């Protein structure tokens, strides 16, 4: 794709992979540069990223933004399939096509203390949140020692980061949910992002404590702009599109897809 074929529609642009940092096996931080500045990106908003090479795979992949500059942004990308494998295999300097920022991020919480609970790459939006609001507390859970690279990198960016692993091989033993019992439902609020199983556990724990809680969902997605209806999730107000109604939802609303 040549430069003048970049999409000048409002939400799509060609970006350059300016830096690729290998955090641990199959986990990368991709830094992307754009000629035009990005509008303000809320923590929890996402982009769809695809290569400009060929058509297989041809759909973009959704990633929460984990860092921004005026003309740049960073994504935390774990290799999960052929799309992410291809994205992570590209050399620096490669041009990619980015759609976004998309969706609704975590709502601002004036006067409340925010506790962010992340499962592995679910820390992405909270890295961005901390970039803007240093008072936010972040708790990261990882499966074990294989994820040390993520924990170390994230701790450099988030002083005071609490890291947990089930076997205590990285940080404390346990999960980020451990903090929920200590939180005050009146003055504190939970934001969570991670695997669905973790989000369900966070939802249940916060419901028990009557803690306000917002969760960022991850679903299969094709367009990211509300066209395909492929990413819907069942909520108390009916089916909602993860891409445009979310990806961040009040946890009390989410009924999942069972």
């Amino acid at each position: 794709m040549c430069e003048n074929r970049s999409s000048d529609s409002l939400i799509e642009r060609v970006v350059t992979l300016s830096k690729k940092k290998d955090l641990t096996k199959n986990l990368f931080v991709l830094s992307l540069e754009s000629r035009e500045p990005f509008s303000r990106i809320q923590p929890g908003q996402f982009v769809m990223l695809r290569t400009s090479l060929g058509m297989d795979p041809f759909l973009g992949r959704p990633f929460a933004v984990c860092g921004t500059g005026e003309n740049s942004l960073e994504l935390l990308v774990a290799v999960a399939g052929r799309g992410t494998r291809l994205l992570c295999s590209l050399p620096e300097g490669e041009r990619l096509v980015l759609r976004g920022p998309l969706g609704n991020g975590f709502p601002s919480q004036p006067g409340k203390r925010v506790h962010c609970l992340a499962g592995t790459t679910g820390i992405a939006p909270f890295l961005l949140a901390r970039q803007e609001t240093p008072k936010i507390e972040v708790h990261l859970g990882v499966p074990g020692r294989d994820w040390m690279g993520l924990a170390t990198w994230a701790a450099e960016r988030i002083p005071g980061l609490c890291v947990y692993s089930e076997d205590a091989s990285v940080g404390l033993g346990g999960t980020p949910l451990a903090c929920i019992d200590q939180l005050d439902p009146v003055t504190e609020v939970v934001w969570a992002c991670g695997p669905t199983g973790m989000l369900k556990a966070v939802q249940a724990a916060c419901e028990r404590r009557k803690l306000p809680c917002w969760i960022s969902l991850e679903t299969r997605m094709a367009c990211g702009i509300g066209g395909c209806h492929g990413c819907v999730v069942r909520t108390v107000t009916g089916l909602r599109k993860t891409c445009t109604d979310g990806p961040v939802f009040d946890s009390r609303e989410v009924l999942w897809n069972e």
Partner: protein
Amino acid sequence: MSDRPVSSAVSIGGVLLRSPLIIASGTWPHEPEYWKDPICAFVGAACTKALTLHPREGNPGIRLWETPCGLLNSIGLQNPGIENFLRDDLPNISSGDVGVVANVAMESEEETAAVLSRLSVFEERFLAVELNISCPNVDAGGMAWGADPSLAARAVELARRCWKGPLWAKLTPQCGNIAEVARAAEAAGADALVVANTWLGMAMDPVSEKPVFSRKVAGLSGPAIFPLALRLVWEVSSAVQIPVIGCGGVSKTEDALSMMLAGASAVAVGTFHFSDLGCFRNIGRELLEHLAAKGYSSPMDLIGKGKK
């Protein structure tokens, strides 16, 4: 070579479009900004999600499955129902820069008649109705309305009675002889035919050892199906006198040109814009450049040229 200026406008059975590029049904947000320039700058018309009489939740479970150069979908016609559409969506999308084509899912005859009669109240807001006859006819054992010439004719006749404006019939590839279905739809009063809809496919999950989709089968779209759709455009446009709109797997200028050379008067793009919103502008510009280089004054000069 001609010095005449090149116009991108085309006429589809009397409906004038500023561009031969149409946004395929079921793929485009009903949000107002998506029905305006610059996103729609090179688009001649955009189709709504399939509309039904009552709201539909669509299918449970996984709805999307990417395949090599393609996408299986099992959305299940999720839509707000005709009344909510007319109240909440139509005011937003019909005040944009691109014409609205109302895609109507062929349900029972009573339900479809009711939808069309409600749309008729707002007839001036629509360029056309696109009747989706890929849907099952519950009274005929679930066979798709478009699977059989007599069923297709019955569906189109009904729509013709209930909707006086331009009527397009969107055919399904899941039929025995699409040329016969096309001729039946033409005889029943369709003003144009959209060729075609998704191909039924399937995906299996080796981990769960079950089909991926709750309904087992799903519709395949995307660049993978382009040659299949092109063949149907060729066959159908050879069988009927009314205009044909090529729909299936179009992702680049060569595809749009090929559809028109095979007999299409316009070309719909659906799945591909999921990954490239700039495709309309790129195809639209390159189409004009191609026409100018070839000395044509209109995309209509291309229609069916590959058959001559």
